[in-house]
């Protein structure tokens, strides 16, 4: 056991990096043997080959295959047409997950952008900006699994009259209130889960929005103030409109994340008490119910919801390239 672990460690630390560099060295040695004229046409393909191969095998082919499988039954042996899609849009428990993803989409996006913007604007005015930023940003380094454990401690519930162990219920008790079962009371438990994601992603929004804020030329802000605009007017009529594209970047990232939300739900409630989301539902369809047709259909719905953002990204990229 120990020896195989040692061998594995050697492969991990030396073997894998050597193999990747070795590939290009090999390619170059082969290309040098070719006639001079064909070198320029062969070489690029060999350089992009590993990336294209990996993307084709792990992203392109599986996406098409999932689309295909979504029209078949549980073990992909019988064509069922749109039955899986009909199931998704009629079954009550799946509809609840779809509704929850809607809640995630609206509130996660709204709250992270609001907090990110608020922090960016406030922190910009004080000398200890970088420390404050780092502390808000810190949860980004933590896995959602660990964030789930952290917030379990926040939301922990003990029956009334017993000493509370959860932070929030401790505060409730200190003010003489009754303890709340944050993760069980519907539909508010969804917001308890979204709050965890907001706690993690606010730092991301802050970092990006803060960079956008610092990119606004000070002359423009000065001009607005000289013309007699109040702080609030400068903010709502100059600063925020000028940050439009930065806010769009944060918002699209949050929308994608809200649609794909999985870890927080899986760890904190596993979708019980009406908190399921479609990514967790898909996991259940795959492993608990082994219905690959329905799991595939859920994945396709997820992909279709993201396609507009994909097109938006490509358009934005094209515009940037045009400027370059």
């Amino acid at each position, binding site marked *: 056991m120990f020896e195989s672990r040692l061998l594995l460690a050697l*492969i*991990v630390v030396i073997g894998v990096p050597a193999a990747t560099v070795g*590939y*290009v060295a090999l390619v*170059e040695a082969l290309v040098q043997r070719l006639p001079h004229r064909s070198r320029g046409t062969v*070489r690029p*393909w060999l*350089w*992009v080959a590993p*990336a*294209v191969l*990996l*993307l084709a095998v*792990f*992203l392109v082919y*599986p*996406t098409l*295959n999932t689309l295909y499988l979504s029209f078949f039954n549980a073990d992909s042996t019988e064509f069922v047409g749109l039955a899986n899609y009909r199931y998704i849009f009629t079954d009550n428990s799946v509809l609840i997950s779809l509704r929850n993803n809607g809640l995630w989409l609206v509130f996660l996006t709204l709250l992270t952008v609001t907090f990110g913007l608020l922090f960016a604007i*406030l922190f910009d*005015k*004080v000398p200890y900006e970088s420390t*404050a930023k*780092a*502390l*808000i940003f*810190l949860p980004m*380094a*933590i*896995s*959602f*699994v660990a964030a789930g*454990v*952290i*917030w*379990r*401690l926040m939301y922990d519930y003990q029956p009334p009259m017993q000493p509370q162990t959860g*932070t929030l219920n*401790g505060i409730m008790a200190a003010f003489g209130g009754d303890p709340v079962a944050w993760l069980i009371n519907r539909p508010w438990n969804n917001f308890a889960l979204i709050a965890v994601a907001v706690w993690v992603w606010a730092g991301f929004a802050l970092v*990006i929005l803060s*960079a956008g804020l610092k990119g606004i030329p000070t002359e423009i802000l000065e001009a607005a103030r000289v013309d007699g605009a109040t702080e609030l007017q400068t903010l709502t009529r100059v600063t925020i409109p000028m940050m439009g594209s930065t806010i769009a*970047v944060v918002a699209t*990232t949050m929308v*994608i994340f809200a*649609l*794909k939300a999985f*870890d927080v739900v899986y760890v904190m409630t*596993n979708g019980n008490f009406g908190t399921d989301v479609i*990514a967790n539902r*898909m*996991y259940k369809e*795959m492993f608990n119910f082994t219905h690959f047709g329905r*799991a595939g259909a*859920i*994945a396709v719905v997820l*992909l279709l919801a*993201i396609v507009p953002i*994909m097109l938006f*990204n*490509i358009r934005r990229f*094209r515009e940037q390239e045009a400027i370059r």
Partner: protein
Amino acid sequence: MKSSRALPLPREHGKRKFQVDRLLRRLPLHAIIVVMVLIWSVPTLGLLVSSFRPAHLVTTSGWWTALVPPWNFSLDLYREALGTAGMGRSFINSLFITIPATVIPIMIAAFAAYCFAWMKFPGRNVLFVSVVGLLVVPLQTTLIPVLRLYNELGLTGTFTGIWLAHAAYGLPFAVYLLRNFFGTLPKDMLESAFLDGASPFTAFFYLALPLSLPALASLAIFQFMWVWNDLLVALIYLGGAPDVAPMTVTIGNLTNSLGGGWQLLTAAAFVSMMLPLAVFFTLQRYFVRGILAGSVKG
């Protein structure tokens, strides 16, 4: 007495008065910021304190009671988490998974990105725009076919399988980021290198890569964090077998199996956070830069 106090440096006095005024006026601002930062830090702080308390106290009293005497701290939860709960082995597994899953996509992406930036071939733009499109493809759409493929090839539950999967999922972002960075390298420099007889191989390893170290560092940290903190990919392709499970999967299993006895999780979660937090505090600059460079990862 009165005059002697008022006399020296009246301007200094005025300046100080101005500063005090300013401070008072800005007091609400500072208060709001401090409160917000505290709210954001309390959850993590609570976990840290809890993980150092004896197990029976964690379940019977709030963590904040540990902040006042009589102090009662212990390392029992850590001992148990690393030993019987299997977090020690999972820590090593996480390393075995994360290191190659960071190195492979970055090297492969660097080759491809250099090619996209500096070599001419038919279909180059179409290929690269496709990569930009793949940035946001949810990896959920790939799970079933890849899992079936792995079952046929016997790659389920192996490190090789998860390295390749993570490498592929990290590639679009890595190619995108590096191609944009390579594109900004001075053209004259590369061209004069070629005139001096350098091959693309030499130009890549001796010019492009060394000049791109900041971008590579950002990318490495980003991919490292992504893989280290990943739950879904490991859960699906490793199947939860304890001898290969990374820490996220082990903690996920503990949450589901422990139920009420979750105090062990506090120490387990902190063990899993140590390395990312260390990376975060030492290399924060690169992490932030990576996030700024391409905030479109799917």
